[in-house]
């Protein structure tokens, strides 16, 4: 007897308001504040009226002097508008890591490394006294249900660092919110009556869609601050002169796709099996006229092809990759035998991309490329296919089952995914024990996870290219070690709020209850156990790289970058 279908409500745009406490008064007040006062409510569609955007996608935050609003290096999905009061941007030099809730790290010295042999705690999850007593120059205070971290010595910071003040009406954080890149500066409140409006990225995107002024403004600053340097670094444009680049930069459009966030609803959807490529937002459709090449800046997109009644995944692409170049180049060279887009591109979760229009490509970019760097012509369906395009080849390399498995579970996000070959793994647990030996006798991953055929993706932090766990940490305990480096949690500043634990879609973070040397649970004043978030840190402090990989005697375990399929296909074929 078949199971009755599980009926789920499709997540609506505003199932969960950003702040349930937004009152009508607040909304009205905001409608009269710039820039909303200048927006034309008629332009907004009935489904997403301006009023509702304000109510559901924004919230008002009050800050006291010294409280940190955002940290450099954090990931955030919100932009901020100063309604009242002032905030300060730290320009130069950057604040010390300890002030931002991070710990200064380096590799363990020789003695500390050797001492791991005899210094291991007997009880699990022992929190050393040294960590508890760390004074970092910041303190935390509970503010209703939120924790705010504030700088203790603001004058000294103003003394030692060059800062700039921002006052009412100024926007900041929009580029990071839209492009899901790390925040570029630390900003803290500079007055006790600071009042900020936090706009989450969905709201920002919709505002930009329907309000010209905001769009122009954000476009302008985006192009000014971020785009030019990014384009300069793109290999496709390396033969262009400065003027040509500026031309391209002017013509580029950028957009953001995705209807829901990674965690929460996504996890629920994935478990019920109703995540299907057909339902994902389409960026480019198969058979569409090539409007321009798609440059993926952040997030991931699925390349698929119509197959029977559904869509067959061929590949996924991540940040820095290009889609559509083959067709446009083909059309440019064979003006008589043009072709349409061969595959469709769909956003997986959240995607931020740039589109370089076809005109610009044909006029400026393609002519600049030498002949041997142009892609081969697109083969017709009935032509002999000697060398299938790279997208199909990838599918063959890795196998359809594994490709679907990785894409459905969004494992391609990982830059250090723990892949276990079940044909070679003897279940000896050497990897877990090695991990424990480098972390004071506490393992930081579970040797178990979803599997497909021969591969198992274990519950170990994948150090994602798009780390959702880092969004929303109140103290900055979870941070990146270096630019695009490993994601680590500082146990000293972690307050156990479980934001990262809830956000992570891969069950890679686990909350542990801290203990003392005797094995007794540590408790706070109310006798509640102190919980810390823990996860794999890729052995940043240890020499020799991840201990798990080194410890597997049968070559069954590897930490693999799944942003593209090269490593995986090589590992499978080996």
């Amino acid at each position, binding site marked *: 007897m078949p199971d009755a279908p599980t009926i789920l409500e499709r997540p609506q745009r505003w199932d969960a308001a950003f702040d349930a406490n937004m009152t009508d008064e607040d909304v009205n007040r905001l409608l009269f504040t710039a820039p909303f006062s200048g927006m034309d409510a008629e332009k907004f569609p009935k489904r997403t009226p301006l009023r509702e955007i304000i109510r559901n996608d924004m919230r008002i935050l009050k800050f006291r002097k010294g409280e940190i609003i955002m940290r450099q290096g954090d990931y955030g999905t919100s932009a901020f508008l100063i309604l009242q009061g002032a905030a300060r941007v730290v320009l130069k030099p950057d604040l010390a890591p300890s002030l931002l809730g991070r710990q200064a790290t380096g590799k363990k010295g020789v003695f500390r490394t050797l001492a791991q042999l005899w210094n291991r705690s007997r009880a*699990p999850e022992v929190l050393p006294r040294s960590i508890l007593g760390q004074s970092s120059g910041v303190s935390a205070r509970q503010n209703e249900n939120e924790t705010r971290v504030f700088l203790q010595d603001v004058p000294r910071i103003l003394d030692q660092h060059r800062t700039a003040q921002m006052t009412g009406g100024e926007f900041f954080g929009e580029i990071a919110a839209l492009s899901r890149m790390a925040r570029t500066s630390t900003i803290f409140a500079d007055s006790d009556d600071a009042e900020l409006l936090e706009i989450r990225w969905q709201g920002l995107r919709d505002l930009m869609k329907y309000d010209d002024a905001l769009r122009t403004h954000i476009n302008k600053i985006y192009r000014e601050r971020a785009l030019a340097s990014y384009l300069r670094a793109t290999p496709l444009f390396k033969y262009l002169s400065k003027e040509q680049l500026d031309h391209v930069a002017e013509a580029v459009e950028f957009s953001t796709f995705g209807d829901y966030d990674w965690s929460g609803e996504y996890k629920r959807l994935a478990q019920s099996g109703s995540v299907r490529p057909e339902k994902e937002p389409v960026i480019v459709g198969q058979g569409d006229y090539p409007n321009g090449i798609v440059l993926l800046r952040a997030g991931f997109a699925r390349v698929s092809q119509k197959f029977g009644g559904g869509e067959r995944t061929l590949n996924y692409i991540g940040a820095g990759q290009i889609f559509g170049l083959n067709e446009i180049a083909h059309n440019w060279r064979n003006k008589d035998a043009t072709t349409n887009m061969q595959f469709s591109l769909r956003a997986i979760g959240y995607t931020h991309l740039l589109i370089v229009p076809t005109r610009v490509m044909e006029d400026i970019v393609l002519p600049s490329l030498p002949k041997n760097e142009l892609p081969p012509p697109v083969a017709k369906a009935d032509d002999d296919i000697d060398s299938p395009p790279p997208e199909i080849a990838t599918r063959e390399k890795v196998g359809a089952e594994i490709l679907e498995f990785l894409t459905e579970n969004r494992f391609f996000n990982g830059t250090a995914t723990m892949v276990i070959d079940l044909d070679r793994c003897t279940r000896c*647990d050497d990897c877990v*024990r090695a991990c424990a030996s480098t972390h004071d006798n*506490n*393992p*930081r*991953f579970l040797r*178990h996870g979803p599997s497909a055929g021969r591969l198992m993706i274990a519950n170990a932090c994948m150090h994602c290219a798009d780390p959702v766990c880092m969004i929303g940490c109140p103290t900055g305990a979870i941070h990146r070690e270096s630019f695009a480096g490993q994601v680590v949690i500082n146990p000293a500043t972690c307050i156990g709020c479980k934001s990262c634990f809830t956000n992570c879609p891969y069950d890679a973070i686990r*909350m542990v209850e801290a203990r003392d040397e005797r094995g007794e649970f540590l408790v706070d004043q109310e006798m509640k*156990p102190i919980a810390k978030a823990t996860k794999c840190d890729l052995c940043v402090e240890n020499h020799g790289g991840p201990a798990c990989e080194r410890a597997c005697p049968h070559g069954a375990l590897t930490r693999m970058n799944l942003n593209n399929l090269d490593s995986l296909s090589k590992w499978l074929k080996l």
Partner: protein
Amino acid sequence: MSERLPAPDFDAQNYARPNQNWICGHACDGNACRPGPDAKGRCCATAECKPVLELKPGETKGRWKCTRTGGACEAGPLPDGSCCRPIAKCSPVPTLRWWRGRLTLAVIAASCAVLLVVLGNPPWRNNFISPGEISQPHSGEAFTALAATNQLNQGCGACHVAGNTGPRGMVHAALHADPGILDLKKLAMAHAATPTAIDESCLKCHAGRNMHQPSAPPVSCSFCHMEHQGRMMAATTDANCNFCHGDATKMAVAAGAGNVSEPPIHHFAEDHPQFRFITEKLRDPDTLKFNHQLHLTGATIPNLPGGQKLDCAFCHQPDAAGAFMKPVAFEKNCRVCHSLQFDPETPQLMLPHGNADFVSAYLRSLPKQYATLAAKENPADVNGFVTAKLAGLRTQFGSGEDLERRIFFSTATFGPEAQVGELSGATRALFPGCAYCHEVKAAAGGSPQITKPVQTEHWLAQAKFNHAKHLNINCAQCHDAVHSKDTADILLPAQESCATCHSPRGGVADTCAECHTYHKPPLLAR
């Protein structure tokens, strides 16, 4: 219906801790407690919460509050501050890895215990560590008694320094061994057959390391004689001998040291040198004149008293041991034909043999001799008999001195030759005089000096030979007596003759030790 294992899912909340050695005893029910066992395997569960005393300002006694993680319980803590819901202690279960650790410790302990017990107890120790059975002469009560009289230690200690001193003694001996434990260079470069410390033990009873050549370098006893190989000590092999004798360099060095130069030998049948009596063309120095060919094949040789022809075996009899032949004796082997009758008329009278003085005395007492004979044969007229005989002699030979002289010194083979009667069927052989067979010299004053014949018993002095083992071979196959006319011929076979049988082709044992021994008393004079 899914056949999947009941938990394709994983625990999203907790880590698995294979690095810990103890698991909560309730885990097998799925109810592992939160704290878990401690590192020593004791259950740490006490109660569901740790009550805290809440003392509001102005109060003295205060109130105990339940601090359970999941939410306060209804009953609340007991008045003395303990939680009202204790958790039953479990019996923590050790992991497999813990068991393996214990097993390892047990094996180590057992090994050490067994070894200490066995090694500390001499009778068990000797049986346990001996790498093989000791040869019969070195074991048993007789050897023990001998060891006692020679003031040696008992048991292993009779030969080994480390023998009876227990584990500590063994370690001490090992650390002071030469070459030492870590002396790899010395171990690798050691020369074979060099005498070692254990040779001292052998020499305690087997004194004197007699080398078969005085100037040969000393060889370790253990090079040829390996103990602990079984009841029978293994026989030496050709390899042991070839170690020196097959090595041209060593033989050259030996030749330089004044020994006889020997070529390298590897195998009897292949390259054993020809026997020296042949190569050096030695001659038998025996002064006795004997013609084997005549005696064995001559037409004039009569049959023996028993009727058989004269053969090798009549004269050459094996001695008691059977290895060599007894010396040929005149009385037994020669007189049967060579009766030494000097008077053709009176063959009953025979000269004594062996001592010239006796012969002289006999001759000078001839009248008496004749008288004795007459008394036997013709007692009536003794005197007349004697006189007649003496007259006859005088006629034949002249004076008594002439007779004596002729008897001793004559080599004539012709002259009055009388067929004198039978003596039990034997024919008398010719007797012209002693010199017919012997070398007779005239000393000062005319008295005869008869050189004593020398019968060499053992020609191949360096080798053993046992005629008893060769009984199935005809004498003539090895000893070419039939063609020998001169006493000086050495009638021994050449090396090839021996090799006919003593070779791989011949099938008889052909090792060096078959004929040669290594340890010998000093060389016999040749």
